[in-house]
């Protein structure tokens, strides 16, 4: 187990280093951000030269990358071009907000999806099952930007029940949570339904039904736990999508997460923050995948760790 853990950690480090290199090359490919600042800031020649030197853009690219890497290893992600805040601090302030939003959204999505999927298995191919499944396909096709604005118009503007923006109140999470969760429900239902149906073909399920156990009990107590390991792996992959996918919802609601930070930093050519956001998001994704792998091992005792 320890050897497995170390191997996965080493792989994760390699992935993060790759993200570091790619993000550095990509953001530096767009050119000199000091020039970009100059269009609006009316910099004098002197100020322009000093900013170039201050941010190291008078050095060649390989030297800049070596310097960037050595600073990263010391935990220094640089400072924001705009605010002189540490880029690391800005990202670490934003990431928990995104994680919170993702967590509550995923939980909500599963709370809706699980009963729907289980019912769909129990009432397979019934009329109500078909109606529900077709309805979920429609919901999945709704763009999250449109859904977010629709929720705002209905629940904030028309009914006045909830705030339209992240105003610091606890209820401010409800609408963004729904905007992310609702499109996920369809995906989760299909995934879980498919897993449940697969496990349902196992011999032990047939054996239990022959013994007289109700299908409901079989599904809830025996089929569902065995369907979970692939779901966990799927969720780890979903996390990567969600880390980037909350960007639009965060922008609409002004939710101070990593997506909002990355968009703002990109439009303002605040490159240290962009690089920090990419690297730390990649690191978070790698870590979540690692935890998911460990969780799968914990959930499914049949999995053998290589290298026994």
């Amino acid at each position, binding site marked *: 187990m320890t050897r497995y853990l170390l191997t996965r950690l080493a792989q994760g480090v390699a992935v993060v280093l790759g993200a570091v290199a790619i993000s550095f090359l990509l953001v530096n490919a*767009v*050119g000199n*951000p*000091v*020039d970009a*600042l*100059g*269009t609006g*800031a*009316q*910099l*004098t*020649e002197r*100020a322009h030269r000093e900013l170039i030197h*201050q941010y190291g853009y008078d050095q060649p690219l390989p030297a800049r990358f070596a310097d960037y890497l050595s600073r990263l290893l010391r935990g220094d992600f640089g400072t*924001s*071009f*705009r*605010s002189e805040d540490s880029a690391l601090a800005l990202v670490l302030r934003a990431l928990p*907000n995104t994680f919170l939003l993702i*967590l*509550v959204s995923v*939980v*909500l999505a599963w*709370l809706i999806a699980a009963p729907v999927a289980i019912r769909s298995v129990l009432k397979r191919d019934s009329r109500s099952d078909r109606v529900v499944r077709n309805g979920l396909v429609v919901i999945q096709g709704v763009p999250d930007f449109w859904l977010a*604005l629709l929720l705002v*118009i209905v629940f*904030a*503007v028309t009914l*006045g029940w*909830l*705030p*339209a*923006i992240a*105003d610091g*109140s*606890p*209820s401010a*999470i*409800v609408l963004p949570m729904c905007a992310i969760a609702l499109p996920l429900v369809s995906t989760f239902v299909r995934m879980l339904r498919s897993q449940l149906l697969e496990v349902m073909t*196992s011999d*032990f399920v047939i054996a239990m039904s022959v013994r007289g156990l109700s299908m409901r009990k079989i599904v809830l107590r*025996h089929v569902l*736990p*065995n369907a979970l390991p692939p779901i966990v792996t799927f969720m780890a992959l979903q996390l990567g999508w969600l880390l980037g996918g909350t960007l639009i919802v965060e*922008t*609409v*609601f*002004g939710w*101070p997460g990593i997506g*909002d930070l990355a968009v*703002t930093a990109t*439009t303002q050519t605040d490159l240290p923050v962009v690089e920090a956001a990419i690297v730390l998001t990649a690191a978070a994704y790698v870590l979540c995948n690692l935890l998911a792998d460990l969780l799968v*091992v*914990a*959930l499914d*005792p*049949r999995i*053998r760790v290589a290298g*026994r």
Partner: protein
Amino acid sequence: MTEELAGEGPGREAGRMGGLGSPISRAVFLRRGVAGAVTLTGASALLAACGSSGGGSSTSAASAGGKPPARPTGSMTWGLNQKAQSLDPARAYGTETYTVNQNVYEGLTRWSEDPTDLVPALATDWSSNADATEWTFRLRDGVTFHDGTPLTSTAVKKSFEHYRDGIGSFLGSYAGEFTKIDDSDPKKVVISYRASFPDLARNAPILGIISPKALVGSGNAVSKTLEQRSYGAGAFRFDAPFSGNSFTMNAFTGYWGHGPYLETINCRVVPDESARVAALKAGDIDFMLQLGPQLQQQISGDKRFQLVSAVTWLQDRLIFACDRAPFTDQRARQAVSYALDRQLMIDRLLLGQGSVGKGLMPNGCYGYTEPSLQYTRDLAKARQLWQAAGGAGHTVTVAYGSSDPQTTVRQAETVVAMLGEAGIHAKTVVLGSAEQGEEFHGRSRKTDILVVNFGWINGGPFFYTPSVFADTQSARYTGRDVLDLQVKQNATADGPQREALLKQLQALAQERDYVLPVAEVRSSDALDASLKGYKSAKNGFMYRFDTIYRA
């Protein structure tokens, strides 16, 4: 390890998490996991039911009759479209940050709203010598900064030095390359320049004076100090650093001028404009700046809100590339000017929220003269001039920035369409921020026409200063007649001589056609109907909140 992990078959109480902690069965693990998830979501729902519905604003106990209250009362929530990046006024960039600074850091002078004149602020009067190489400002008595420090000439000196030399400062060009600042008299400051700097008084509103206590130590130390709280002398202050997407400005009760009349301004970032309008209608915000023409239709006619407008010093313009064929030939530039129907562009794209740009400076700027040459659409002439300039077969690239607002994007597309009607083949090109910077400052142009929304932030000819941001630079126009006039006007203090030079310069620039002004934009701000006393800022950048109160 294997034996611990091996199960006894599915559905049994087996599969212990050996090696990861105390033994726990898979079923128990699953039950606890589900219970935890349900609790978490239930708690969120419970909090949602109990939580308040938004951060709207309280009403004040303002005096009857809609007059400002005697003391600051009530609050307002301002929805920003992006974060005010920094609390250091030297790093101001973007409308939001300029506006925050305008209310927190007062300059030596400021702009009155209506009419838009330069009026005293921290300085009661000012003057320059004949060639504008020396400026004298007399400071107002009884002014204190937010930290209680009184205003002296040393504060002005240190502030100007911070603007010129501070880490990451964007405003050094506005302070100019001064050689000396004499602060020997605490109530008078004398700023000396090696070369003429005639626009200092008009730049002063953007150069907010900072308490000298905050300007102590290294550049990094000063930056960090200024991010913690405000050290200005403006009507509002902030007492805590930015946090996430919100911050609060509080009334400064020691303000030297009239107001402020609001106790608190809560600032919330809502990047999407549609979402901001929805938040306004939901009552989560009370105020938003520069509402786009299309979305104004949602607000106008609704008695709960008001639109406050001003024709601003924001100018939409096309900058030609005078170093790229066929635009090296003036006839090609004229062909484009004749091909466009600018009034139609304003009517359709800005929904009438603007007027046709006539001069190279907006109307109301110092030295503005309406040029005699005005283009009206003439497709036949456009075709003829284009042919004569050798433009046949050339595809005109009309460029805009990737982060430009939608109106700029649509203007670029409309320009392409109108050129097409004149037989001039064109296409749009999107530029990233750095590419756009290259087009403005690089050695040569890569696109033919740049569509730009330009703000004359200081209402004057400062932007004809060759070293700063002259149109001739971004157009790569090298005609000596215009360049020499730019240098001459920049070396002359305000007065009849300078005004005459500016009149000449505008007329000549119009004849040479390296920039075509399209529109002077009318900017509309949307606010709750109960907020009174607000006037929109003519320069389109620095909005003031010290006159606002709740009726």
